[in-house]
């Protein structure tokens, strides 16, 4: 049987000289779910962008159903039934879901205007057909990431995509949403579609895919039937060495109270109460994990604690010094570091160089500041050191952050925040989009910081991550703390789940002693 897609000898060199694909032969069978894995910067997104016509290969050819094709643009790829959902979404925030779905191929009504009714109808139909649940008339701005992603997929299906490329779709999803996505993906395949699926979570590869291809350093290492391989094998093929996915934690040595949060409340711009009288402490030498389904106040909590939003009432203190309603600079000066959940919004200036992204919290003090000037030698040196220490894949630190792969962008943030020697480290989704090797590294570092005496507040959609890294866990639901578990090791996933969904609740008296 001829494969639906065959990519032969693909070479891709970017204009800055980075060779992202070095002669790749890759094929996909009709009707399969094909997982594509590999370290950050291995060239996965690049290969798929070539397939989708977004990047042009420097060399090599593309065959669709055995026939040579050439896609100069995504439009041409879509016309040939190939659709892609990107690592970073590309939707119009002020449009409704339905408008986004039909954008570019709108059903027109009288006078050439958009036929809104029909747009809603097709969106609803597609949504039902593939089990991709969306609110067709909701404005995009108001829906969460999971639904946005479903909108992206629907958009591709609406254009008639037969082959769907999903670039790290689960990186932004909660475990529940991931399961929903998998159900939808299976439905797609049952209805004759083909799916290529990029992920860093090897568990997911095992769960969903028929075959898996491993890439490393721009080369294709191998393609196998998923059933014939183990996650350990895959990890080894990806990284080229043994990987330990379990965290080894030194025994906890809990110190003094470092951060104290008292009766914190936050009301959103539209008047919704996002945080309700939240109180807890974080101690030196512990990782306090926050378990909750995304959208239950975690984002707001982190942003209030880091000075990005004002509190409605209540206080947070670091070593007794109030940090609520202070500027981000003041909060940072009090010793708080922050890995933001959305790296592209807050965490990075994409067009600025890597070096410059690494000094935003420290450029104004020696050794980075020398007299009136910024000491460029120090900036350069720190850049080199951190690039090496955190294994950021780039030719040099003067390149703009845009030239990095998604996971390497995340490493830039992690490098900056970890290297600031924080007393309190607030880490939101620290390993989102990061490959197994680097995840291992970041988790180790996080635990190391805690063992060295920092207070770590960990927020992650990955429940297993919260459970394996934390010493203590609090569960949140709708902006309130529903439970606290002083010994993270002794709580089960199911138990935690009940608190995260607000089914079970501890009384304040029960929690008081442990918060």
């Amino acid at each position, binding site marked *: 049987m001829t494969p639906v897609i065959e990519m032969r000898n693909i*070479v891709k*060199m*970017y*204009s*800055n*000289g*980075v*060779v992202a694909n*070095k002669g790749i032969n890759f094929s996909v069978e009709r009707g399969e779910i094909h997982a594509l894995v590999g370290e950050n910067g291995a060239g996965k997104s690049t290969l798929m962008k070539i397939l989708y016509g977004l990047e042009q290969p*420097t060399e090599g050819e593309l065959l669709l159903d055995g026939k040579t094709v050439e896609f100069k643009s995504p439009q041409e790829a879509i016309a040939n039934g190939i659709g892609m959902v990107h690592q970073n979404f590309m939707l119009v925030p002020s449009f409704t879901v339905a408008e986004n779905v039909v954008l570019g191929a709108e059903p027109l009504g009288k006078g050439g205007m958009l036929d809104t009714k029909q747009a809603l109808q097709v969106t609803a139909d597609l949504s039902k057909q593939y089990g991709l649940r969306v609110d067709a008339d909701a404005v995009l701005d108001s829906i969460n990431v999971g639904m946005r992603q479903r909108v992206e997929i629907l958009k591709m299906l609406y254009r008639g995509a037969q082959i769907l490329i999903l670039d790290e779709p689960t990186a932004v999803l909660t475990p529940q949403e991931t399961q929903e996505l998998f159900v939808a993906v299976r439905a797609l395949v049952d209805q004759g579609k083909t799916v290529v699926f990029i992920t860093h979570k090897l568990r997911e590869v095992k769960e969903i895919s028929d075959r898996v291809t491993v890439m490393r350093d*721009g080369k294709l290492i191998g393609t196998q039937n998923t059933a014939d391989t183990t996650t350990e094998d895959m990890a080894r093929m990806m990284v080229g060495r043994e990987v330990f996915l379990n965290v080894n934690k030194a025994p906890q040595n809990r110190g003094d109270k470092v951060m104290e949060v008292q009766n914190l409340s936050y009301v959103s711009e539209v008047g919704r109460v996002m945080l309700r009288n939240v109180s807890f402490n974080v101690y030196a030498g512990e990782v306090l994990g926050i378990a909750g389904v995304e959208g239950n106040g975690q984002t707001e909590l982190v942003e209030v604690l*880091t000075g*990005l939003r004002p509190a409605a009432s209540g206080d947070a203190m670091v070593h007794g010094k109030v940090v609520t309603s202070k*500027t*981000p*600079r003041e909060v*940072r*000066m009090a010793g708080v570091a*922050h890995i*933001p959940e959305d790296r592209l*919004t*807050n*965490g*990075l*200036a*994409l*067009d*600025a*160089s890597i070096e*410059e*992204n690494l*000094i*935003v*919290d420290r*450029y*104004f003090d020696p050794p980075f*500041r020398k007299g*009136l*000037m*910024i000491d*460029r030698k120090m900036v350069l040196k720190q850049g080199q050191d951190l690039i090496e220490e955190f294994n950021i894949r780039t*030719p*040099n630190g*003067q*390149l*703009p952050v845009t*030239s990095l792969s998604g996971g390497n962008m995340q490493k830039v943030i992690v490098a900056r925040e970890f290297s600031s020697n924080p007393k309190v480290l607030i880490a939101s989704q620290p390993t989102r989009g990061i490959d197994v090797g680097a995840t291992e590294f970041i988790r180790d570092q996080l635990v190391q910081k805690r063992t060295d005496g920092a207070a770590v507040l960990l927020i992650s959609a990955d429940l297993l991550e919260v459970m394996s890294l934390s010493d203590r866990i609090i569960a949140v639901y709708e902006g309130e703390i529903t439970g606290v578990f002083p010994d993270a090791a002794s709580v089960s996933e199911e138990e935690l789940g009940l608190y995260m969904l607000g089914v079970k609740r501890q009384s304040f008296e029960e929690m008081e002693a442990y918060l």
Partner: protein
Amino acid sequence: MRKIFANAAVREFIRIVLAVSIALLLGLIVTLLVSEDPWGAYKAFLLGPLSKFNRFGDWIEESITLIFVGLSVAIVFKAKQFSLAAEGQLILGALVSGSVILFVPIESAFLRITVAVLAAAAVGFIWGVIPGYLKAYLDANEIVSTLMLNAIALKMYDYFLTYHIKPEGAGYTASDFLPKAYQVPSFMPKFAGNLYEMFSKQTNITHFLYIMIAACVIGWFLMYRTPFGYELRMIGANIKFARYGGINTKQVIVLAFAISGIFAGLAGAHLAQGIHNKLILNISMGLGFEGIVVATMARNNPLFVPLSGLAYGYLRAGADIMERSSDMSREMVLVVQALIILLVSAEGILPVIQQRVNLNNGKGDGVGTAAVPEGGSDVIQ
């Protein structure tokens, strides 16, 4: 080849030259279509500014003004603040500097001139603080507020000129000439003899030339070497990131508007004290807005502003001459200018060339030449 392209400064230079050449070529085509005597007209345009010594002077003088306003615009634009305040700042700069020379009784010429120039810078600064504050703290759209402030500045200029500065009973609306003793000296030192004679008689290229060079260096230094410049650039790159990282974005925005005003104020001083040596009606005629072209062409990098200022000044000077000496209208020249702006702001041109070069030089080593962050931020290494 590859090495040369790796040097971002060279690439920028090539980009500007390329854009100007293509635009000139298109200009020639337009001329051929429109003019009775296309070769004569085009020659006047292309070579006019160099054809006579005083025309050469006109070109350089105008370029100096353009470079000052270009710097001004480059600084606010770098922070992605779309201030159009340069025009008003320039007008007030001219008003203040001319008035100081005319009316402030400081004996020493050096001191009076210095005070006049500093006063122009100061008024530009203040005229920047206002829209900066309105934008940063009250979220007022800077395009609207700066246009309003420009109108106010212009009316103030006209008012003071008509009712206070114009000599009583004069039949024209202009000030007296600045007293000879208090005019800014020619850039040529006296001991240069013949050259000094030539330049000081036929041109008004003054010490403002040196101030302009210093301003470019200082502007570049400020932008690429100081903490303030870093803050400015990060705000321009992603203001949310800047805020998250701890930068006091509001304060930096106000300062960006204000510091940009200093350079526009200096442009005004140059008009009053360097070019006209008096205050006249319509002293600016929109020069402040031309700063946008100059800055855009220079990718908001102060070091490239002189180059783009000279190039653009040359076009304007050539246009003037062609308009006067042929049947071509100014409109055609505006067409060429618009083409240049388009070509220069089309990001795509150079990367394509560079990619070709990379490919021809073999590949596969993985360590390539540096892409330039943010259109040349770290340009001069």
